[in-house]
Every structure is written in C-alpha cells, then in structure tokens.
C-alpha cells in the first residue's frame, strides 16, 4: 500500500492508483472535463492538474494520469494549480461560442460551471474561432463545432464503451473537429444514433433534437424507470418538467451502466404525450361508424361478452392472446394466464424479439 496526503488528509491506496482515484477515495473532488471512469485516461483537457511535492521536489501534473508514490503530498487547490486551471479554461473559452443564453446546455454545462467556479468571465485572447457549420445530418442529434472543446468524451464513449468507433477527431491543429470518416459528416459513418456521445458531452456541442426545451434548473423531478423496449432492462431517468416528460437519460443500472440504445433514448417517451394517443376506452357506434368515448366498465363488458360468445360458438382455440413487448412481465404473465385459464387456449405469444 502507498501512503500519501491529499490536501493534508492522509490516504492509503494500492500501488498503481492514480491521484484522481485516490482523491475520490478521500472524498475530494478534482475537476475534470475529459475523464471517463474505467477507461484509460484521455489526459487531454488538462483540468485535473494538481501540485505534488515529494522529497522536496514539487511538480504540477494531471491527476488522472499520475500514479501515487509513497510520501506524495498532493495539493489540489494550490495557487499554481488554480492558475494553471484558469489558463486552461482561458484557452478553451477563446475558441468557444459563448452565447450561453441561447444554448440548450445553459445551466447544464461543465465548461460554464468551471468558468464560474474559477471566476472566468471571458477569455483574455483575441483571435479566430472555429467557424465550421453545425452538423445536422444525424436524425436524432446535432453537433455544433463552435461549442465543442474537443475533450473526446464522445469519441472515447463511442469507441471504447459502445464499441462502434463511428466517430473520431478529424483534421489537425486548430482545424480539429469531431466527425465520421470520410468527410466528417456524422450521418455518413457507421453511427447507429444511440446518442451515448450526446450524454457524454460536457457542453452543448452535442444535443438531442427531440429534446423538448428545458433548462436543467427547471426540472420538477427525475423518475428512474426501466426502458420499455427489450428485455435488457436498461435503467433510465425520465426528466419531468411541468408534469411532462421532456427528456430521458441513461441511468447507471446493472445491465446498462449508463448507456442506452437508439430506441431507449429516442423512442421511449414521445408517445406518452402524443396527440393521437388513446386516453379513454372507445366503442364504435354501429349507426355512425365513429368511435365514441365509453367507460371502462362498458368497454370491458363488451369485450368479455364477445370473447364468451366466440368461446361458446367455436371453442377456446378460436381465441388467442398476443402481448405487446412494451408491457411489463407481470402484465404479460396475467395475459397468458387469462388466455389459458379463461379462454381455455394455449394460443398465446409476445412480440419481445428485439
């Protein structure tokens, strides 16, 4: 075991632990922009620098890459560290479109939070800013290079976690931009639109198109639920504003570890408030041929009587029950129970074959 102190707090960790991990154990937060837990550190954002003194020698290095040594005295908020972080933010800000008022990520942006924390109102640099147009080619989300800080969280998520490797850094130097080969256009690559890159983005550079307008601080509540699609059972958080679902985010469940697929992320809540959604039982008027609103009792009585009629006239095997895959296991169980026990038939199935 290695012994060190972080901001004066003694910490004991295993050899090979990084300072960032050790600080987490000690309950100390070091700011990061590019870091993704469980992955080899990208080390590109340079925000997590700390000052480490050992044997009278001190150096500033990134906490995500630096492994602990016996006797390290780590300072996470020394004057030099703060100065370095400010300069890092200053450079990032010099190539960032700061029209935060119109940005969807306003209030939910790590760059904004850090600039606020370190007292940076504007950049001290003059100069060119990325002028590439917004990429709207993907049906589900858009990419705005003028908001991108090239932290590569999206690329690392897509390549290392999702395993799709649909996007990468394109071009070089100041022209660097995220995109898909060959011509940078997202839709022309192998992207499956799962949107995990969007969730990984710390700024507003990647944004879901179907996201309804809301600010992070306007959210009434977050409801943890299970994705209604397939049997993987991904956990997701429904974001609710004014009593309506406005967004969904992958939650850290045992089967999905924060990820979602394109159906879970982009096809699992729009129907809730859709204008064509049927909200009451409807019975067709034989005279007019139009559906008319009915009570549940009326509707259920009608269906039950028709089922009984068929069973009496043609036998139980003339009936079948087919459950929707979006139903819960309990509901589906009850349906097959009804088919077998009440209909007296084994004709039952479910479409959960995604």
């Amino acid at each position, binding site marked *: 075991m290695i012994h060190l102190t972080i901001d004066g707090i003694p910490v004991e960790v295993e050899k090979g632990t990084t300072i960032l991990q050790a600080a987490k154990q000690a309950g100390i937060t070091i700011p990061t922009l590019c870091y993704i837990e469980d992955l*080899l*550190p*990208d*080390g*590109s*954002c*340079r925000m997590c*620098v700390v000052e480490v003194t050992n044997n009278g020698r001190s150096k*500033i290095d*990134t906490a*995500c*890459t630096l*492994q602990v040594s016996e006797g390290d005295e780590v300072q996470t908020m020394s004057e030099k560290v703060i100065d*370095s972080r400010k*300069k*890092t933010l200053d*450079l*990032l800000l*010099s*190539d960032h479109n700061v029209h935060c008022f119109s940005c969807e990520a306003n209030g939910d942006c790590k760059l904004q939070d850090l600039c606020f924390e370190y007292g940076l109102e504007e950049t*001290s*640099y*003059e*100069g*060119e800013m990325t002028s590439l147009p917004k990429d709207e080619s993907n049906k589900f989300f858009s990419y705005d290079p003028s908001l991108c*800080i*090239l932290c*590569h969280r999206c690329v690392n998520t897509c390549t290392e976690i999702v395993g799709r490797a649909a996007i*990468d*850094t394109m*071009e*070089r*130097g*100041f*022209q*660097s931009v995220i995109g898909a080969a060959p011509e940078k256009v997202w839709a022309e690559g192998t992207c499956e639109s799962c949107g995990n890159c969007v969730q990984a983005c710390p700024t507003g550079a990647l944004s879901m198109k179907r996201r309804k307008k809301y600010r992070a601080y306007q959210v009434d509540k977050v409801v943890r639920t299970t994705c209604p699609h397939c049997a993987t059972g991904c956990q997701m958080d429904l974001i609710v504003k004014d009593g309506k679902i406005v967004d969904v985010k992958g939650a850290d469940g045992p089967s999905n570890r924060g990820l979602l697929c394109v159906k879970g992320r982009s096809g699992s809540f729009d129907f809730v408030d859709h204008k064509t959604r049927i909200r009451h039982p409807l019975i067709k008027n034989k005279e007019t041929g139009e559906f008319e609103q009915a009570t549940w009792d009326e509707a259920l009585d009608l269906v039950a009587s028709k089922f009984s009629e068929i069973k009496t006239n043609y036998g139980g095997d003339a009936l079948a029950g087919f459950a929707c895959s979006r139903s819960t296991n309990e509901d589906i169980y009850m349906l097959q129970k009804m088919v077998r026990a009440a209909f007296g038939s084994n004709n039952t199935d479910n479409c959960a074959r995604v």
Partner: protein
Amino acid sequence: MKITSIEALKQHRKKVQEAVNAYTCRILVCSGNGCMATGAQKIYDELSRLTADMMQVEVEMQKDLPHVGTLKTGCQGICEYGPLVRIEPYDYQYVKVQVEDCKEIIEETVKNGRPVTRLFHKDGEEVYEHPMDIPFLKKQTRIVLENCGNIDAESIDEYIAAGGFSALAKAIGEMTPEEVVDEVDKSGLRGRGGGGFPAGRKWKQVLRQEEKERYIVCNGDEGDPGAFMDGSVMEGDPYKLIEGMLIAGYAVSAENGYIYVRAEYPLSVKRLKHAMAQLEEYGLLGENILGSGFNFHLHLNRGAGAFVCGEGSALTASIEGKRGMPRVKPPRTVEKGLWEKPTVLNNVETYANVPKIILKGADWFRTIGTEGSPGTKTFSITGAIANTGLIEVPMGTTLREIIYDIGGGLKGDAKFKGVQIGGPSGGCLVDKHLDQPLDFDSVKKFNAIMGSGGLVVMDENTCMVEVARFFMGFTQRESCGKCGPCRIGTKRMLEILEKIVDGKGRMEDLDKLKETADFVRARSLCGLGKSAPLPVISTLDTFRDEYIEHIQEKKCRAHVCKALKNYVIDPDKCKGCTKCARNCPVNAISGNKKEAHVIDTAKCIKCGNCMNNCSFDAISIQ
C-alpha cells in the same frame, strides 16, 4: 539462394568480395535525394549506356579491357555540389557532373586512368582530387554513414562484401540475448531521435517484461523541415538499419519488426522494400535465421505525413491503423507499445549504430564522442551555409567546427546570426553557443533540443520573428488536436506572431506571447506540444530587441517582413526614366518624365518590382 548458417555467410562474403575486387574500375554515382533532384538518374543512365559495351566486350571477347561496374550509391555527403560521381580505384571525386561530361569521364578516367581536372571540387585556388581531401568530408567521423556513398544501396552482396551482417552473426553465434543488451547498454548509445534516452536501458526494460510477444519498431518518420539524416541512411544503407533491427530483435526475443517510413520518402520506401526482399531471399529475414532458430519478420509501414506520428505512441497507433494521436503514459511503450505488447522503439540512426557496437564493442564506441553522449551524430546542415549537406561528427563537436570547418562558413561570407537545431521543436543557438560542445545534455541547457539533428543556418538576412512565426505555423498545423494547450495555445501564439510581423503588434503582446509559450510548454500532453513553443521562447530570449523593433519602430532589420518594408526612391539617384512606374502593378508610383518619382506607400503592395527594375539603383528598402 538461402544462407543457412554463419559459415555459409562467411563463404558467401568471400565470394562477393572476390567479385567486387574483380572490378578494375568502379563508377559510383551518388543517388541520394539531393543528387537525384539535380539529375543523377540521367548521369547514371548515360554512364551505364557508355559502359554497357565495355562490359560486354570484357565478358565475351577481350579480357584485357577494364571490367567496369556502374553503381547507384547512397548520399556521398556534399549535396551542395551534386550530381556527384566517384571513380575507384583512383578515388577521384567529380562534382556537378553533367550528362555531357560522361563521355569524357569514360574516355579519360575509366579507360586511361587520367583525371578530368575541371570536374574536381574547387575552393578558390584549392583543387580537391579525392573526396577525403575535401574539408567537408575530411573532418567527419563516419560510423552510421560509413557505407553511404561507398556501396551500391541496392545490392545486398556489396553490403555483405563490406562486412555486412557479421555483427548479426557475432550476436547470434557468440552472444546470448542478455549479453547483446548489456553490450548496447554499456556502450551508452542514446536514442538519436531527439530525446536521447539510453537505448540499452530501453532494451533491458523490454527484455524484463513478462509478456513474451514483443515488437521492434523503427521510427523513420523524419518530419522536421530541413532534416534528411534518417532518409539518407534508409536510402544509402538500408541493410545496416535492418541488421541493427535484427540484432535488437534477437536481443529482446522479438519476432516481428516494423519500419515506419514517411510516405514523402519514396526512395527510402523503395530501397527498404528492395532490401527486405533480398534479405528474405537470402533467409536473413524469416524463420530460423542463419540456422540459429531465431525468427524475425519485418514489415514496412508508410506514414501519411503527420509530424506528430514521430511521437512514439502516435506512431504505434498509426501502425495499428488508428488516427496518429499520442496517448498518456504510463503505460510506456516498453510495457504496452505496439498492439499493447512490449515494444522497442528507436529511430533509424540508433539502430544503424548497433552493428558496429556489437562488432567492435562498447569500449570502442565510448572512445568516440563525450562521456554522457558517446558515439557520433549525423546532422543535415542547410540554410545560409556554403556547403549544405549530410555530415556525421563525434558528439561534442562544436557548432563552430560544424559551420565553419565542415560547412565552409556562411554563404557569401554573410554574418552568422543563429542556427535552428532540432527543427520546429528545437531552439535557436547563437554566437555565444558557437564554441560549446554539442551533445544531448548541453543542447538542452540552451533551451533547445538535439532533435534528430537538423541544423538550419541563418544569417543576418533572416528575421527571427518571422522564423518563430514560420515554425509556429508548422507546429500549429501539425498539432494532433488532442489537448487544449497545444491545439489552441499554438494558434493563439501564431496569431500574436502574425500581428507582430504585420506591424500591428503591441508591447503587451510580448508578455502574452511569453505567458502562453510557458503554459503550452508546461501543460501540453505530448512532446510535440511541450516543445512547440521552444522557437518562440529562445528567440524571445535572444532576439527580444528584434521583436521590440517590429512593434515600436515598425521595422524589420532583415527586410523580410513584407508589411514592414518601405520602398523609397532616392530623388538624387532617380533619373525619371519611368521604368519603375511602368512596372508597378498597382500604379503606386508617380512622377513626371526626367523628374524624380515618388512611391505612394499607402498604395504600395511591396512586391519589389520597382526595385528589381530600377537601372540606377535609386530604390531601397527602409
């Protein structure tokens, strides 16, 4: 034909040596890049055509006529005077040879042994007959380049005749892998790619790894503007590089090697491919090399022209087919390099040093160079120097010896201003450094790096602010875009430098420039970013007065920065001939015939047409 044992190699060497000795006359045409550019291929073709008959005659009918071989060699060194032709056994060195000279060379020298005096290199009254008389070559110590220019770069037999692969035979036949690593470690050989990390220590670390699948990788992605040392070795003596890699493979028990060559070196690629095919044919690459049970396969990868791929982790990523971007360390390349396996990564020159070390021993190697940096270093000297070219000198040679004794001083005897060492990642050495011995450690102290050894000599006509701007433009374009300090920091520095050379700089820009340079140097992720600000830092340190002149006086003393040039007509000298006005593309010059003319500086686009056309020397830059 396979050479299946060390004994068979010896036999073959004897045979090819006899064949080489059978030539009564050898014509060596330099086919290094410089000479190829000035027409060496035509010279070679012409000489081959002229000697073809003679060979035929010799072989078939008249045994008394000379047996002539025309060879394409690697760089003979004095690139400034190409195309170069050397004739053995007379050891005549001909320079600036033209196609028309070939016939005379054949008639006079080849047939009759008489020199063609007018083709010798001349410096004032001095005429140099033999290559080793020329100061440029005389003062060098050639280990890495020993065969360059002396053997046919496309003939494995010539390499074998010159003693090639005897180091490999010695390593395989007489030494254990550990002994090979120890010998390299003891020699103190340091990586010639720039950082100067001890090669032996690197090999030892790889040998220690538990993982048994290991790789040998050669960095031949020489990307510095003005550097062509590694290219010259790959073109001139590809066998030596491969022998070094084979020895490394044996030493650390690696079965696969990769050479990463920049695609801009088509000749290197061609020669290496050719050499690899020959080695495979001889069984010196492949399974059971020299009957020892040692297997080694070599692969060639072409880089796509990214400077950052000279960085170790970006290079291995590129070989793996990924975007060439550096990653953070640890894990280091010796632990998890190519395909996440332990990897020895050295550059061309480092591997090319290895055969001689194995053959002659670490103690011999340590007699050359300095205590901390044994051996020699190749440099390519370019820029405002009389003799541009490729040189190899012992470590610890001073800049003065390189520039004045070997390089022949500055072109046109101009005043020396500085030397950019280590390319865009390096720094600028000036007057006060002229007598300092150059080695890995000393150069670092001067805020520069040895780099791979590019030396760009600058005279008083060089604007140092513009030099800093040029290099910053280069590194900015070549930044991989991963970390902010390098991607954005170099851009902001470039913008400030552009402002200054445009005459729009302010004094506070200098502080911002220095602050940004220090930050980028300290906080960048990889070596490219960390060293990118060095040209700015070193010129700001040494030539701060030039920066201030640009800002305060709007003056560029070297008259390089276009925006700061002011063309002025001397009314006393102007005869009113109107030639300048007629040649001005923007009608900025006015005046009546036979009266002094005036330039409207607001309209002037500083093209210099007027000055070039003035017959009375009346126009000057102020």
